[in-house]
């Protein structure tokens, strides 16, 4: 009996490893191996054609005095600080609207969500035209409203805001997540609040916001990580202006800079070091959000998996 149980357990172990083997092999070959290699490469000078030469921490030291590195950091942070809160607020507002048990809700949800799924290259190309300072519809609309008409991608100070405006069009994914969060809020809470005489504003601040704060938290982390992975739009819209990153590198997002260093200039060692710094920054920011979440995220009693 004991022997049978033992062999059963061995069988189960063998089966388990058999079924997860694709992922395990993939993890070693496509992730762990490259990660280790990248750690080493970041300490070398390597152009793919000649063997890497070890240079110690030189790449990291170079970064400190590389104006483009600081520019990339600045552009990325500026974008994240503007776009993440703005997009989240807009997405939440849209989800609140859709949560009013309105008719045709499915249609409205479809309209709001659709742009988030379209190919980023096509979206960028379209917005390049929309943001055209002379003939684009955005400036035409602004002019109609009597507002100033910026030069957008052709003016360094308006480049990042142009990307932020474009990002609003893609908030559909956040909105869907918020909407689901809103629909999970127990109705009894609102009913009790109404009996206590709470108005719309009180209900939002004291019930809705605390109840969806875990979702908000998830979106905030994802938004920050997303800003550091922002590439396609930066590449397509920066294309053909200056050195491929907008006027005076005003659109030099971090990922774009990493791409330029690694794949245009073949500075594989330096690009690896840039990758590790990015990893470190994302990790720190995520930790910061995690640690601070205790202060503002409300987890209801108990049954969270």
């Amino acid at each position, binding site marked *: 009996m004991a022997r049978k149980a033992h062999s059963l357990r061995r069988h189960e172990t063998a089966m388990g490893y058999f079924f997860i083997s694709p992922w395990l092999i993939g993890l070693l070959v496509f992730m762990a191996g490259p990660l280790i290699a990248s750690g080493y490469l970041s300490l070398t000078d390597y152009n793919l054609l000649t063997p890497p030469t070890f240079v110690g921490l030189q790449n990291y030291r170079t970064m400190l005095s590389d104006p483009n590195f600081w520019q990339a950091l600045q552009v990325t942070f500026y974008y994240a600080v503007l776009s993440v809160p703005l997009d989240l607020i807009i997405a939440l507002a849209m989800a609140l609207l859709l949560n009013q048990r309105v008719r045709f809700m499915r249609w409205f949800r479809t309209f709001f969500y659709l742009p988030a799924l379209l190919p980023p*290259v096509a979206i960028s190309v379209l917005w390049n035209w929309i943001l055209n300072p002379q*003939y684009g519809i955005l400036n035409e609309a602004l002019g109609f409203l009597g507002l100033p008409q910026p030069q957008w991608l052709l003016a360094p100070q308006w480049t990042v805001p142009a990307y932020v405006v474009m990002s609003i069009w893609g908030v559909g994914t956040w909105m869907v997540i918020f909407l689901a969060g809103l629909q999970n809020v127990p109705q009894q809470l609102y009913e009790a609040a109404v009996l206590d005489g709470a108005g719309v504003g009180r209900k939002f601040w004291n019930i809705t916001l605390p109840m969806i704060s875990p979702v908000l938290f998830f979106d905030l982390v994802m938004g920050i990580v997303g800003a550091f992975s922002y590439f396609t739009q930066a590449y397509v819209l920066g294309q053909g202006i200056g050195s491929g990153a907008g006027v005076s590198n005003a659109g030099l997002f971090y990922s774009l800079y990493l791409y330029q260093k690694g794949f245009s200039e073949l500075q594989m060692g330096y690009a*690896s070091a840039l990758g590790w710094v990015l990893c470190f920054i994302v990790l720190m920011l995520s930790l910061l959000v995690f640690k601070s979440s205790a202060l503002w995220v409300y987890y209801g009693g108990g049954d969270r998996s």
Partner: protein
Amino acid sequence: MMALASRARRKSSSRQARLSRQAADRLGRAVVYLLLVGTSVCFLIPLFWLVTSALKPTDEIFVFPQVWIPHPAEWGNFARALTTLPFGRFAFNTLVIAGLTTLGNVFASAMVAYGFARFRFPGRRVLFLVMLATLMVPGQILLVPQFILFYKLGWINSFAPLTVPAFFGSAFYIFLIRQFFMGIPSELTDAAYIDGANEWAIFVRIYLPLSKPALTAVAVFSFQGAWNDFLAPLIYLNSQKLYTLQLGLSEFQGIFHTQWNLIMAASTVIMLPMVVIFFLAQRYFIQGILMTGVQG
């Protein structure tokens, strides 16, 4: 809201209060619809602008104020745009890449998910946590070393770097499918087990057919991801005959940078399949997002 309103209504005794509450409700409802319609218009205008621009004759592009309805509609723009670069070829390449990626992702991820969901084995918990942790690793850090790996393997300028990794599963999809597998009652499999079916048969004949919603969500996500991907094709594909639609469109914009009507025509055609897939499979997109997003 309606239930709330009616309950509140029953409670209020005075008729006057009821009337004013009804009026306030109606006003609030009108404001909500106004905002919804306004926002919808804002979100749809860019797409409308895309299509009208695509149909404009060249002399109507650079006029101010803008022409909203092109006259005459230049349907020939589509043919001109799509034949200037071999977009048919690009579409074929994209389909091959997206098809293979989807196949690999669905099958391999389901297999791994089955391993995690069904068996207890030493190291399972740790490996599962490792898998979740890999979701947090930013892809940019792998860009350079993976490129070097594929370069050494001689895979540059082929579809291999874009498709082969999918056949090893993807952490995000494995997680998604595993959550679904966990909900399949064990009575179903016990019966099959007694009938002498082996694990592989149970996986293929019971788990896979029962998990169609989750597998479809993964397929749709995976296809959309591969169709929309730009960075990987940009890095790995050099010769034009291997280009995907996204690479082709990016190059097209570089070449014809002021012929907005042609550029918009090409963009319209490249967006269209995603719009169609979206309308056919919207349910799965939303389910997929919810399965990952809300559980947080």
